[in-house]
């Protein structure tokens, strides 16, 4: 996030796009609810009716995957009506002309045809966003988990750059990170392209720096990103080490991956539970849970905060870091003598200028938001204060590209997947909490009442969800949360793995899989057991129940 979570309550306009905030980030949703109570305007762009859209001023219920069309149309209106901040653009950005040229053809009327969002609503939202100073954009995986994920992000940042809603409080461009430490894992260099602190691995000087610091010549062969790795399992990739990740649950098109895993020579799984991937493991190492170890997590607003050991791990389980140190040691690599976890952080901070001012000691009472370059520098509450961080903000003109897969006569529905309030990711943790499994015991698929009627599917009946990659059985939840051509299911349930269905087509830049769009169909299953499916946290709004 360019800005901070506590700033949200003071904002005057929010565009929430591709984020089911109240279910995936409930505490950020509380901030948004507070802002709305205060009078802030809220625009929610989501193919589904969600809790946040129920309190929104505008619900832009777009066709899944048509984000670029919508965002370019918003840009079109802003430019057409002269609402862009010309001075700011001139001082702080490059490349506006190209964007202007590109979005010229993205008229609201044409956008309505593709996205399903009324042209007038697009105009209203564009005006409201452009003319409100404290206007923030909040997004998450509904933007990035597309083959056009990078394009989507560029199109969003174009809006930010042309309005100059950056570098002040309660505005900016705010991706909401899905996991406790997504930010921190990236910060730490757990990505093929970066060393810790976003230092390019392709940069020779950087490699030289780390070769010297670590005492080992650094490889100059570019690494594979996760999406590429998964596709090369069994071919290039012959050995794997999984730390706290259940790829067999979480990766898209997992049926193909499972076949490939049979061709792997050696695999280590390190986890707190015997997860699904352990079926392919040669060694399984028992790890400590978060409450059983020390360290830091970095949250979505770049806040480095302490994780503290409260209890001893069960049996022989050990903290991941202790295990890694042992593996490194036995493999012949000699680490410096760390006296504790704080020393490991200190080593990273010494190699990454962004974190140079952060230490366990400094965050004992309160977290620090990076960048913090020196030990006496304060938190960076919001980025780009007084101008774009690195010289000029670069506009990126993007054209709409259709999702990898689109509905067709054989697979006439668009399947989207996501998270619910009551479970978390592969749900190895949350399905072991009785109160949560009672509230939401099993997988379900949301189907629009009309679609359900056409298919003769009753609410609570079992159905098969079928795509070109797989077939999954789960319960139908007839719901007006989805549009007629769309179905939606959560990915938490091992016995009904949504990722047997999803496509592994990835974004060209990040490799992120298109979890949010693929073509699917529903097949009714003959099963007399019909049960109520609890609708999650969201109730169908009144105006929708009234109409039939």
């Amino acid at each position: 996030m360019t800005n901070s979570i506590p700033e949200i309550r003071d904002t005057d306009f929010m565009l929430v796009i591709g984020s089911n905030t109240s279910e995936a980030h409930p505490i950020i949703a509380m901030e948004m609810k507070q802002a709305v109570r205060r009078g802030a305007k809220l625009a929610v762009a989501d193919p589904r009716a969600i809790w946040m859209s129920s309190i929104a001023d505008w619900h832009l219920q777009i066709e899944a995957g048509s984000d670029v069309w919508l965002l370019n149309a918003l840009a079109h209106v802003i430019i057409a009506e002269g609402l862009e901040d010309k001075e700011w653009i001139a001082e702080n950005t490059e490349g506006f002309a190209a964007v202007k040229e590109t979005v010229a053809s993205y008229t609201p009327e044409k956008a309505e045809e593709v996205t399903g969002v009324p042209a007038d609503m697009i105009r209203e939202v564009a005006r409201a966003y452009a003319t409100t100073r404290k206007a923030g954009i909040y997004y998450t995986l509904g933007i990035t988990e597309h083959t056009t994920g990078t394009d989507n992000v560029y199109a969003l940042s174009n809006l930010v750059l042309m309005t100059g809603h950056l570098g002040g409080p309660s505005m900016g461009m705010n991706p909401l990170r899905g996991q406790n430490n997504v930010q921190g894992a990236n910060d730490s260099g757990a990505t093929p392209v970066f060393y810790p602190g976003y230092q390019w691995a392709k940069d020779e000087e950087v490699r030289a720096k780390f070769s010297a610091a670590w005492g080992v010549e650094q490889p100059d062969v570019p690494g594979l990103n996760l999406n590429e790795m998964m596709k090369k399992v069994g071919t290039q990739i012959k050995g794997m080490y999984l730390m706290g990740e259940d790829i067999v649950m979480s990766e898209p098109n997992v049926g193909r991956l499972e076949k490939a895993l049979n061709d792997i020579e050696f695999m280590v799984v390190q986890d707190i539970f015997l997860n699904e991937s352990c079926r392919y493991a040669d060694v399984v190492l028992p790890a400590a849970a978060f409450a059983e170890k020390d360290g830091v997590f970095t949250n979505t607003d770049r806040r480095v905060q302490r994780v503290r050991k409260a209890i001893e791990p069960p049996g022989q389980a050990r903290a991941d870091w202790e295990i890694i140190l042992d593996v490194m040691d036995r493999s012949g690599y000699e680490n410096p003598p760390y006296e504790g976890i704080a020393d490991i952080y200190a080593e990273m901070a010494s190699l990454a200028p962004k974190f140079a001012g952060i230490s366990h000691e400094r965050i004992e009472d309160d977290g620090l938001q990076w960048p913090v370059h020196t030990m006496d520098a304060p938190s960076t509450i919001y980025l780009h204060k007084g101008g774009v961080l690195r010289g000029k903000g670069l506009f990126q003109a993007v054209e709409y590209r259709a999702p990898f897969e689109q509905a067709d006569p054989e697979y006439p529905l668009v399947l989207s997947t996501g998270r619910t309030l009551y479970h978390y990711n592969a749900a190895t943790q949350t399905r072991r909490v009785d109160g949560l499994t009672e509230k939401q015991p099993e997988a379900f698929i949301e189907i629009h009442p009309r679609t359900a009627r056409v298919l003769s599917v009753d609410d609570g009946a079992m159905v098969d969800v079928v795509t070109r990659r797989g077939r999954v059985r789960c319960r139908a939840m007839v719901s007006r949360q989805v549009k007629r051509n769309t179905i939606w299911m959560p990915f938490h349930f091992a016995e009904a793995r949504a990722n047997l269905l999803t496509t592994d087509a990835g974004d060209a830049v990040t490799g992120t899989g298109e979890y949010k769009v693929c073509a699917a169909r529903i097949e009714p299953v003959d099963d007399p057991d019909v049960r109520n499916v609890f609708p999650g946290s969201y109730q169908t709004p009144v105006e929708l129940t009234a109409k039939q």
Partner: protein
Amino acid sequence: MSEQTLTINGVSIDHRPGETILEAARRLDIDIPTLCHDDRIEPVAACRICLVEVEGSRLMQPSCHSKTQPDMVITTESQRVSRNRQFSLSLHMADTVSDRTIAEDANPNRLFELADIHGTAGLWPHVDSPRQGRPMDVNRFIHFREDRCIGCALCTRYCDEIEGVTAITLAHRGALTTISTADELSLTDTTCELCGGCIAVCPTGAMTEKAALAYGKPEKELEKIRTTCNFCGVGCQLDLNVDRDANRIVKVTPPPPGTTVNDGNLCVKGRFANDFIHHKDRLTEPLVRDADGVLRPTSWDEALDRVVEGLQGVVTRHGPHSLGFVSSSRCTGEENYLFQKMSRAAFGTHNVHQCAAT
């Protein structure tokens, strides 16, 4: 323009339009006790313990609700004010559990904490209000103990104003006033999202954690360990309430409002989804796959050797870039640092990515 001021206990302070007496007093480090107030929630001035004297006003004024005016003369410490505080405490105690041990059997009890500071007007006969509970509520997390409820409505107001789901409400009236759901349904059958905010704001433990209540150790005997939530990316700070002797997390509580990024709030996962830590399915020993393909328990020594042999074997056969290292965005920053260092420095490949890349 000359600055307008007001006076609290003889000390002058600048007047800020819209500020309550309570807020102005805090700026002077003057403590006014409250039972039904929370900074995140609109004041209702129901408990009446925060009444203070305002010159020219016949009745004392609720400091949580009354806005300051220029030239106001406020007294927060006087015999009259103090008598009302003691009256309020005695009054509430007559309406709730008055035995301190029982009253603090689970959650802290603000009534008794305030009584320690301000004293009471004595112990009055218990009124035994005919409030209804919800004994048939089958949800696993939140239990309502009507005998401890003081009707402050912090829970219903939190549910309405902060969480925004309005699953609970004040129901009935007068002595019968209680906290209810629609038709007294179980919370699981309502719009409740089980965030447990009602527990956090309850001053008397009337809203309490079912599991911790069954565990039987009062909160004051548990050790609070501040940490960061391990679910989504908000980074909520939470206090693990630990029974050291039993090596057990009994419950999770939020830090006080206004102190951390989550402002005293937690969601259902942060507050309640911690059973997994003590779950019987936890891996407690290393496993290796033996010759006939079965995972069997082994020693750390053997397991680590197998890991290194296995990985180095692949490198020997296919080169370092045939290895793939996948880390978790659930693990700590240090662990991710070490993991990529292991990949790059110990095994010589950039094939390392954290799981949330896709």
